[in-house]
């Protein structure tokens, strides 16, 4: 299946993209995707504890299962306002 990964702020700098399409196996979880990304982008490991995730524009947990066409956003703790 296909998912879209979005990255923001420092995570965008680490990954070097703000949006990317990935082809992944069915019934993959957020943490599986992060593990995949870590292989290509080892810098991601250093910030893993500080990551937040959103599935289709809603906050989600790291064990959330993703579906085809989902958008997974990965970002650090927010600092707007």
């Amino acid at each position, binding site marked *: 299946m296909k998912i879209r990964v979005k990255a923001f702020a420092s995570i965008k700098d680490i990954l070097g993209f703000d949006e990317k399409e990935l082809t992944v196996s069915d019934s993959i979880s957020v943490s599986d995707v992060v593990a995949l990304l870590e292989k290509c982008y080892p810098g991601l490991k250093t910030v893993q504890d500080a990551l937040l995730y959103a599935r289709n524009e809603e906050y989600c947990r790291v064990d959330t299962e993703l579906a085809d066409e989902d958008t997974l956003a990965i970002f650090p703790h927010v600092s707007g*306002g």
Partner: protein
Amino acid sequence: MKKVIIQQEAIDVAKYSCQLGSDADGAVVTFTGRARNMSGDKAVEYLVYDIYNGMAINEMQRIVDEAMERWRLGSCLVVHRYGKLAIGETSVFIGVSSPHREESFASSRYIIDEIKHRAPIWKKEYYSDGSRWIEGQR
């Protein structure tokens, strides 16, 4: 009136301030967040806000809904900017009105606190010798 706006252009505080309050409201409270020239002891030259647009609108609308459920508000307006901000420019404007002042103070405080915790927006500070993403805590 209930409105959440995300914009790249400068926030016109005077314009938005005038839209608040009905004849039933005795109180209006506004909160304006501004780009400060110091961060700790480091001089800041300018800021850049990164924003997850669609999600930020959803999350801020949810925060406004929570506030309007909890307090009796006549109006509630939230405007957040993104992109590059010069020192002194407005990053966020929150305006609420209510019959009595307690609701306006409590709800505006609630809204800015929740935005800073939940809205997917990130600030990057630029100094004369580099830059740094600011990360909040939950």
